[in-house]
């Protein structure tokens, strides 16, 4: 036990073995710190994704350090990199295979809007195919930006109505 400042009431917090909350908040707290991600990596943003995931920035601090390469075991679909029209049905299929509850992060400007691509091959933003929860712009986004997006996703998970 640390020393208690003089004059403060001496309260032994260890005596309280319960806390009050709502079921919604408790489930949200559990879900936001146990994000299993599916990295759908198609392009150069993947390098920045790796930088974010590795020890220097360490995405595991946010409980999202465990990429699953099966959509059936994942909670968050990280779409990292340009999506072409040829790839779009694959992305849709991966999304459909994920179990509820599920979220989607558009990582990089190509997935947000198509980026600087305006051609016959590129999808103009993955939100034309699947719903997106968080957009992380950048070409590619800095790891700090990715962590910011991840924290915004956690905030969204915490505050939403938890379907059980």
């Amino acid at each position, binding site marked *: 036990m640390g020393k208690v400042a003089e004059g403060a009431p001496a309260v032994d917090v260890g005596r309280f073995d319960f806390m009050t909350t709502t079921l919604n908040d408790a489930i949200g707290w559990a879900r936001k710190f146990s994000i299993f991600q599916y990295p759908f990596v198609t392009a150069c943003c993947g390098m920045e994704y790796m930088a974010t995931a590795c020890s220097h920035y360490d995405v595991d601090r946010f409980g999202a350090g465990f990429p699953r390469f099966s959509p059936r075991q994942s909670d968050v679909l990280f779409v990292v990199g340009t999506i072409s*029209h*040829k790839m*779009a*049905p694959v992305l849709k299929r991966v999304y459909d295979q994920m179990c509820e509850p599920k979220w989607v992060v558009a990582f990089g400007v190509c997935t947000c809007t198509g980026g600087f691509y*305006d*051609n*016959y*091959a590129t999808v*103009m933003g993955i939100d*034309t195919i699947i719903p997106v929860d968080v957009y992380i712009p950048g070409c590619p986004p800095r790891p700090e930006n990715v962590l910011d997006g991840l924290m915004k996703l956690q905030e969204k998970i915490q505050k939403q109505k938890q379907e059980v």
Partner: protein
Amino acid sequence: MDAAPSLAQAVRAKYPNLVTAAEELPAGPTVTVKREGARALAASLKSDPEFRFNMLMDLFAVDYLHWEEKEFRYEVVYNLFSLEKNRRLFVKVLVPETDPSVDSVVPVWPAADWFERETWDMMGVTFRGHPNLKRILMYESFEGHALRKDYRYNQRQPLIGPMN
């Protein structure tokens, strides 16, 4: 390497009935060949001990739509390299718009397989005698050929999702 005559001139002198022009372009020695004799010249350039062009580095087509000075719309360009002699040669075949086709050189250089598929996919030049001439980059349901000058660059043909 002796200075004269140039490689392009030497090829022209050896196959005068196939080669219509020989020039020294900034890219390297270049010969223009009649479409009917393209495969015969390819086989000869590979086997001839004077040239030994045993490697096909690249194969592509150029679309000269709206070029006044060009009589033919397409040019198929073969980028040849001789490992033995350490020198390059560009072979150009002029292809008319009405019948965009040339003989496949897969029997001569197996490396031509995917190059010719790409050229067919992007430019719509067919290669007679190719073992498996189908699209390699775009999907089968894609209509038209994306790199032709009269194909609008951002004309999208999505498999799923909204058009454009």
